[in-house]
């Protein structure tokens, strides 16, 4: 049996959360409070705090990664994915447990680490490469490849602060892409750069995986994860909930996110904006409140809003995204409602039947202020939207992001 590339046992990380500042109810209390503040702050800065101010960002996580395995890590924001990568890359140390890493590990938690804006592209390649753990001789060897992959030949001796953001990211990723680690940790770096470059990076990452390196990849881009990874881990609230093949894990993750709200009511202490979305309800096509809509019946979103602007100076929009983060559609109230809406009221946005592929979606309701030449986003609320497969024509070949039933009819020769 080969030695695992990464082996984690009972890993846990406890953080101290900053307690809220104390409120004083009397003058005397305030005086004594202020006098003891330095002492309390000193204790806090030393890390001496009560139990209630601590929380486990990660707990009881055990897993193994075999050499050459590409693992995708999914989970909601704040689930502990980044903490796990930070522990593996030794940026922060675990509170409990043990990790064994066999071989050289590089982490790409951010592109362009240590880039100094005043230094030139050439100088930054050496700086960044060394920070990432390359030897000077290694960088010299790969220098030309790095430069040509980034496509910045003509700007080599320009300070990077004069680079466009695209060039900056390309250079940074190019340096990172020429690392030859045995284990690579990647955190959401592909969220930057232009589409074409992202594709090249994905290609580069695929090369890395094919060369037998172990990769741990954190991303919200589930498409990229499915394409790149073999296996997955699903982390939720600091616990490792599931491991398995990447498709299983992605499915589990998507179905778990759909348990969130599909009805929303603004809490009373919500900040008041220029335009407020007060409530969102999901209704079936019969106008009754529903938890989900049927594929063959459709439904509608009822949106309660309250605006300080007159009806022609703002719009309400609905944007529907699938569980992979792809936007399926966007529609504005002005699409079909020609009469001026009142400053506050209810709007219904009808989702037609036989259109959305059964599954889980996120519906975002956007309130936009219309100014002279653009729309400014003022408020945004998202609810989950589940489309049930009732009435869905289940032909296996019916692939596509949306699955509408289109109108077909025979056309006779000679008929107009």
């Amino acid at each position, binding site marked *: 049996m080969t030695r695992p590339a990464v082996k984690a046992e009972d890993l846990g990380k406890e953080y101290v959360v900053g307690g809220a500042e104390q409120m004083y109810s009397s003058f005397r209390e305030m005086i004594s409070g202020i006098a003891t503040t330095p002492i309390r702050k000193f204790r806090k800065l030393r890390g001496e705090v009560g139990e209630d101010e601590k929380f486990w960002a990660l707990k009881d996580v055990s897993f193994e990664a075999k050499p050459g395995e590409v693992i995708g890590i999914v989970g909601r924001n704040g689930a502990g994915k980044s903490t796990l990568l930070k522990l593996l890359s030794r*940026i922060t140390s675990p509170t409990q447990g043990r990790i064994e890493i066999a071989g050289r590990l590089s982490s790409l938690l951010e592109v362009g680490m240590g880039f100094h804006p005043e*230094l030139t592209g050439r100088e930054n390649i050496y*700086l960044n490469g060394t920070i990432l753990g390359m030897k000077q001789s290694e960088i010299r060897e790969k220098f030309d490849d790095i430069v040509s992959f980034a496509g910045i030949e003509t700007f080599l001796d320009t300070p990077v602060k004069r680079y466009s953001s695209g060039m900056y990211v390309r250079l940074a990723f190019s340096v990172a892409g020429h690392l030859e680690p045995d284990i690579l940790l990647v955190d959401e770096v592909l969220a930057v750069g232009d589409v074409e470059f992202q594709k090249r990076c994905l290609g580069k990452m695929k090369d890395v995986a094919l060369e037998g390196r172990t990769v741990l990849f954190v991303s919200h881009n589930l498409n990229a994860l499915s394409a790149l990874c073999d296996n997955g881990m699903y982390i939720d609230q600091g616990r490792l909930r599931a491991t398995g093949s990447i498709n299983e894990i992605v499915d589990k993750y998507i179905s778990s996110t759909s348990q969130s709200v599909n009805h929303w009511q603004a809490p009373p202490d919500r900040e008041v904006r220029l335009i407020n979305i007060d409530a969102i309800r999901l209704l079936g096509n019969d106008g009754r409140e529903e938890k989900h809509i049927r594929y063959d019946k459709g439904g509608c979103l009822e949106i309660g809003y309250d605006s300080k602007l007159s009806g022609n100076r703002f719009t309400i929009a609905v944007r529907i995204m699938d569980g992979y983060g792809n936007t399926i559609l966007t529609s504005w109230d002005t699409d079909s409602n020609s009469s001026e809406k009142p400053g506050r009221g209810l709007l219904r946005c009808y989702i037609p039947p036989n259109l959305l592929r059964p599954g889980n979606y996120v519906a975002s309701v956007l309130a936009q202020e219309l100014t002279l030449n653009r729309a400014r986003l003022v408020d945004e609320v998202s609810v989950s939207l589940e489309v049930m497969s009732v009435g869905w024509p289940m032909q296996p070949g019916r692939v596509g992001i949306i699955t509408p039933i289109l109108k077909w009819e025979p056309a006779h020769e000679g008929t107009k």
Partner: protein
Amino acid sequence: MKQSDPIHDEYFGPDRVTVIEPPKRWHTLDIRELWAYRELFGVLTVRDIKVRYKQTVLGVAWAVLQPITMMIVFTVIFGRLAKLPSDQFPYPVFIFAALLPWNFFAQATGTASGSLVGAGQLLSKVYFPRLIIPLSSIGAGLVDAAISTVILLLLITYYGVPLTINILAAPLLFVAVIFTALGFGTILAALTVAYRDFRFVVPFMIQIWLYCTPVVYALSLIPDRWHWVLALNPMAGIVEGFRAAFLGKPFDLAMLSISIFVSIVIFVIAIAYFYKVERRFADVI
């Protein structure tokens, strides 16, 4: 053919097995690890040097102008106006021999103490021995010190002060002042991470420290029996040592030993404290 580098390979080679565990209470200075990361120390030092004078009109000339201006101001105020004694040496040479170690120390300690907070971005994204950060900001100060040494030698020649055998002690004194800066620099860097108060304390402290050190005045102004108290300030013994080495006056060995001893003690405490809190840096920054 790649050169083999056993220590680098030990840390970066394919056979490396890294074990990550909760930090132990005490940790000793890991010289091997620092050595494995020496190239990082090199590039960060070079970065600090390059960046310091980027986009300035005078560039490295500042490294010459600054100490000379200080020397002129001190000479006018303390030498001419206050007429402080300078042990029979021309006041400019007398003061510059002290400004050389003092400026290095003040600058290195000052930049080192803010260095970890300044590198917070880096600390929270990638692992390397954290000690590299304050070390490299001290390393960057050595360039200015080298320039100042040349100026001092020119001044000595200009004023006709004879060089003596004492000059041979200069390299040792440089080592002493570097260690002193390392000690104070690392401990203040670590303290600044946890308690940002030190950002205000350090510049202020260095200013007062200047007057607790015989830089602008001669040691002979202080009664002999109090010299040992002054020597508890490691910079006092070292500054006097520099004067002895470059100006050829006799060494005050007792004072120098006390200062160097204090300096070593501080260095040991600094490294111990640094390692103790190192693992928390990324969480706190």
